[in-house]
């Protein structure tokens, strides 16, 4: 019955509206709503964390911490139609806290993160190349911007606001990053 309702809910509401509803459900004591939120956001959270930390173990930690934080902060969420941005902000803060706490974890090579795909049957060689090049060949800011746009679907304007950058900066970093990636990815195909 609940499942039926949720699919109806998700069909009628936009993603943002559904997320906001689930967040307020949590405040009301509904812990199943967290599961729904997870389903809608896990890729964005993990990808974003990975893009900042470049390290899958830390990214996984943040994945855990993020939803704990959502549970605990649901009460203080103000419905402004931007639940994704709120969740990404939580993610980003958790990432930076981690970075401040242990700085020297970043020698771990990119390959370690790419190897996460070993367990996924559907992962192709191209997926590995994409993952590797995003982590290895882009600057930190470029990578954050690309992930926020490609995985979470944020508009450049929204990204500018989230990262506190000027819009033209975001646009040019984004296009530089995509340009780099296109080259690297088509080279790999040869």
């Amino acid at each position: 019955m609940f499942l039926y309702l949720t699919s109806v809910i998700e069909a009628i509401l936009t993603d943002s509206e559904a997320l906001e509803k689930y967040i307020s459900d949590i405040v009301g004591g509904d812990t199943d709503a967290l599961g729904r939120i997870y389903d809608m956001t896990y890729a964005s959270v993990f990808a974003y964390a990975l893009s900042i930390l470049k390290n899958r173990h830390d990214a996984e930690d943040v994945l855990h911490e993020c939803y704990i934080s959502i549970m605990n902060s649901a009460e203080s969420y103000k419905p402004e139609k931007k639940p994704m941005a709120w969740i990404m902000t939580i993610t980003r803060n958790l990432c930076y806290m981690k970075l401040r706490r242990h700085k020297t974890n970043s020698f771990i090579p990119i390959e370690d993160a790419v190897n996460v795909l070993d367990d996924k049957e559907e992962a192709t060689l191209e997926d590995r190349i994409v993952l590797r090049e995003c982590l290895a060949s882009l600057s930190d800011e470029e990578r954050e911007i690309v992930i926020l746009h490609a995985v979470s679907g944020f508009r450049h304007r929204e990204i500018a606001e989230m990262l506190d950058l000027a819009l033209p900066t975001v646009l040019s970093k984004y296009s530089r990053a995509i340009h780099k990636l296109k080259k690297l990815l088509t080279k790999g195909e040869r």
Partner: protein
Amino acid sequence: MKNKDINARIKRAFTLAVPDVKDAVIKNATGQKGQAIIMTNVTKKRSVIKSITAFGVAAAIFVFAVLGGIFYSNNYTAATVVSLDVNPSIEIEISKNERVLDVKAKNADGELIIGDMNFNGADIDVVINALVGSMLRNGYLNDLANSILISVDGKNTERSSALQAELAEKINSMLSTEAFNGAVMSQTIDKTEKLTSLAEEFDITLGKAQLISDIVTANDLYTFADLVSLSINELNLISTSAGTTLEHVESKGEASDKSYLGEDVAKQIAAEHANVTLDDAAFEKVELDFDDGVMVYDVEFRHDGVEYEYEINAVTGAIVEFDVDKDGGSSNNTNNGSDKAPADTDTNTNSNNGTNAPSNGQNTTTEITEDRAKEIAFTHAGVKADDVKGLKAERERDDGVVKYEIEFYADGIEYDYEINAVTGTIIKCEREREGGAATGNSSSAQPDSPSDTTSPTLIGKEKAKEIALEHAGVSADDIRDYSCELDSDDGVLAYEIEFESANVDYEYDINAITGDIIKSERDTDD
């Protein structure tokens, strides 16, 4: 490739990369909140808990001390040394638990590879990954020189063999995702006193020493000292070319001979010099060899009852030596490559080292000149000496290997070459777009009118479109969503063309100068 395609691929790769931890995450998050409620009831039991915990702590300390001792010996006593050799040489000390205790560079190239990475306490797998990755990024493992030697030296032979096999496999699969194929040689070290003293005398790793030792044992042509300055790729080539079986070293993949002329060219050179048509020559042997400090092709063939033997410089193509054996007469000639003596003349003893023009201050007769090194670099890069800017050339000595470092710009690309001064082989080759990929706000499409005016030899977008359509077998009227961009990849200008027809997506890369189809793809939409 369209932006939306890239975005889709990124989204896919990162989504797949998420571990399957939903249950754990939810449990953690919701359980957490539950715990918070219980906590407030616990305060009354505190004093009882206090004494129990005190005892527990004491017990725990004892257990930790014991475990700590075991932990220490497993993690900190050196059990095994793993070395990597390509040109760079690196030694990795690992503990019984296969955790890294120390990483040492054995030469300057090795230091470059290590850079400022800090490995202490990491897993051997992770470290190997990082080092091989660094070699790839720094251009030491590439198309031209793809061989790497991994040697394991440990007290427990079984473990060493297992580790050797595992790491060799791992490196093999790492390299197989690159655009070239790697050649991985692996071995466990049989540490004799002789080996140790040879390694020390020539300042090379035990691994390289054992490889050279194996080659020398199997093949009397060489002495140990001869081979010390060669790279692993060259050593690999020599031993496979001669068909030698090595005692300790196992080999996967094939050494790259792309920096050499190739057997076909060598045959041509030999036949031409002998005034024999290529087809009429019955070739008996064509082998890559190392002689007198130079990589050469040994070419032997017969024609009309005459036996011909040639030694041809594998890089320059100069004829180092030739020998003609008619029934009843033999003449031996060492020759300067530029004059062509017809095969029948004999006692022309023009002895000269084939590769060298006399020049200033080069100390040994077996070194190539700086000009020759530049030539080699330019030819490899496909540029003309006149088009080159910012040329820098330096002769350097690095761990007993003398080399030329050559840097220059051409066509918006920065080239960096290291060329072995003795053999003329390209040790390292790096290319970078001048100033990096940043080209400001515009998207990837390079407007092609400016390029057309500076290089009038481009075929033009219309012609490129024709070529693509013809290859695809569709007519211009049947296509949709056509796009054509001029782009430059590694110095090759190409038109990137995309279009759809019927249910098929087509993609072409067409060389903007020659019109050759570099790449073509078709994708049927289901």
